[in-house]
């Protein structure tokens, strides 16, 4: 069950984004703007340190506590690197580096860094090695995903503020796992937003003299969409819980299962959303695509379904015993 503080944080972020990240902002950001007002509104919530332990100056929340907040970011297609700042700060703190103020991003040294050009600091990862750079120490080769979110490659032109190695519990795949977990919860949120739009449209758009949502063919499709949306949300929450229990590296199985589940859900959900909206949903003018393009893009980040399916499948094949005892033991034989 989501803790009270988790619910409260999610609600605060929801209110802030409702005010500060409407469709006009999304449009401007996709055209290349940096939404300073939106970022300031989010920064005012003081959430960067959400996952940083209290003795390191953070809020000391668990990953499961942060999952609902990440869903909210997805629900608003939040055009700022708040998820990246939260997870980047957690990674730095785990390595003993004091997280900086302001917009922070992270990623593999040779990979695409989310919002790289807009971040005031960036943590670059080589396996378990993590180095914190100020913006001035990096030059950017700009790029983007199909959600038109900045995804930039860094070239180091200065010196890091600090360098360290992540402890074993975080491991050499910490960047990948954090990204997969973030995007899993964000996909669940973006699916909630697209589902709400599609249901609203089905209830208002009339054809043959009645709202199209009165037709069973449409109802049945939206029911599938809703079911997949719930599955995505449960998967993200369960993966976050696994990280709290076992540590990040040891929760790779759950994170991978979640990423497969949300990726498949996103594919199915986005397709149904567009089917319900018909031609209208394909227009630039309609807001649906801000969510569906992100759904498609986020499937790729932190490992696609294909990437994780191969890995999870191999892990299952390598089990010394049956699959079922393995799955149940992961929940029951580890004391939190």
């Amino acid at each position, binding site marked *: 069950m989501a803790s009270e503080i988790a619910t409260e944080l999610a609600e605060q972020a929801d209110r802030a984004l409702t005010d500060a990240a409407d469709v006009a902002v999304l449009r401007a950001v996709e055209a290349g703007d940096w939404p300073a007002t939106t970022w300031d509104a989010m920064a005012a919530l003081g959430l960067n340190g959400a996952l940083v332990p209290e003795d390191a100056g953070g809020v000391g929340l668990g990953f499961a506590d942060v999952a609902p907040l990440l869903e909210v970011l997805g629900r608003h297609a939040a055009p700022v690197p708040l998820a990246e700042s939260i997870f980047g700060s957690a990674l730095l703190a785990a390595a003993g580096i004091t997280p900086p103020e302001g917009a922070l991003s992270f990623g593999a040294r040779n990979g695409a860094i989310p919002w790289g050009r807009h971040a005031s600091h960036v943590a670059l990862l080589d396996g378990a090695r993590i180095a914190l750079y100020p913006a001035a120490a990096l030059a950017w080769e700009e790029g983007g995903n199909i959600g038109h979110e900045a995804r930039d490659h860094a070239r180091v032109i200065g010196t890091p503020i600090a360098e360290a190695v992540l402890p074993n519990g975080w491991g050499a795949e910490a960047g990948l796992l954090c990204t997969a977990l973030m995007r899993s919860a964000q996909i669940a949120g973006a699916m909630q937003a697209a589902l709400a739009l599609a249901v609203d449209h089905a209830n208002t758009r009339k054809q043959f003299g009645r709202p199209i949502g009165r037709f069973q063919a449409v109802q049945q499709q939206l029911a*599938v969409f809703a*079911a997949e949306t719930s599955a995505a949300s449960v998967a993200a929450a369960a993966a976050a819980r696994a990280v709290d229990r076992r540590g990040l590296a040891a929760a790779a199985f759950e994170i991978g299962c979640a990423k497969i589940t949300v990726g498949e859900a996103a594919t199915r959900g986005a397709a149904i959303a567009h089917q319900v909206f018909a031609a209208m949903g394909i227009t630039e003018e309609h807001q649906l695509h801000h969510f569906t393009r992100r759904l498609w893009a986020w499937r790729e980040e932190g490992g696609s379904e294909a990437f994780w399916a191969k890995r999870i*499948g191999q892990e299952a094949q390598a089990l010394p015993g049956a699959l079922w005892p393995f799955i149940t033991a992961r*929940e029951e034989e580890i004391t939190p």
Partner: protein
Amino acid sequence: MAGLRFDLRDAPDGAAALRAEVRAFLAEHAPNFTPEIRARSWMGFDRDFTRAVGAKGWIGMCWPREFGGGEKSFLERNIVLEEMLAAGAPVGAHWIGDRQSGPLILRLGTEDQKRHFLPRIASGEYAFCIGLSEPDSGSDLASLRTKAEKVDGGWKLNGRKIWTTFGHLCDWMIALVRTSPAPEGGARHIGLSQVLVNLRAPGVHIRPIRDLVGEKGFNEITFDDVMLPEDALVGQEGAGWAQATSELAFERSGPDRYLSSHPLLEAAMVTLKQDGAAAPALGRQVARLWALRNMSVAVAGMLEDGQDPVRQAALVKDLGNDFEQALPNVVRDLIATEDMPEDMRRMHAYLTQIVPTFSLRGGTREIMRGIIARELGLR
């Protein structure tokens, strides 16, 4: 859309120990589980096995001790159910009594009904079936016509139920029947009642219906002036519809809605252990299984808390049925049937033929999606 919200549940205290105990019990019995028995899952009927499960205290686990129960939590019961299904144990002789009939009697039955029936279900002595569908009433259940008329000393039952699983092997049925006419121009749901029918009573004619696999699994049961005693009524006269539908969350969210093909998945994992090309498809099955289990356990937690997660249950059933139904075809894409080991091929053959029932029994896929659509505000 609050009805589509799931809160994760942690395993109950002692989960691993209980699971180990169930596994040890199953390991003893497993040599008797043929591939066909494992493939039948909770449609396997074996009185001896059921009595052995009863002796362990694993039927009616959540019921009060005075009625033969174990006063365990819903989450502990869920562990036993999961293990039984994962092993492909023949739990059919007690599945309905444990899942539906017993809980209904516990909740709404008279003191005498509880004292008589519950300990006998819990010991495995009484096997129950459910009488819902009729020849002309399937998904449109409220149109049913089987009638119980009030007469001196009880009720006179006439009509016909169909598709009753194991009707020919069970002792008792809880049937949904009409006890008074639907109000003129009013809801057809009014005037229905639930009654206990002794399937050995005079006037009960049971005709097994052979299924497409060639087995006698379900039945047509005709009631020809069957006399029921006064106390055959369960709960309130005329409230049968509300009573029956309030059980749906129990019926639809359990592991029996996503684990029906599980023994085949385990067999595939063994057979395809060295097959690198099969890894991605197997990985997707594992991920789905993991996600569904988290959802199903979440619903068990809501039931434990006394909530009525009927919409979440419909949702888990819909997703779960899709998963368990697709599995035989997923597997035959990875290994040709003629290359499967004998045991696996037999399970695969049985499941290929029977999986269409998964999205029919307990409410069709279309009905489940209709329930979700209503929660979305579309109906």
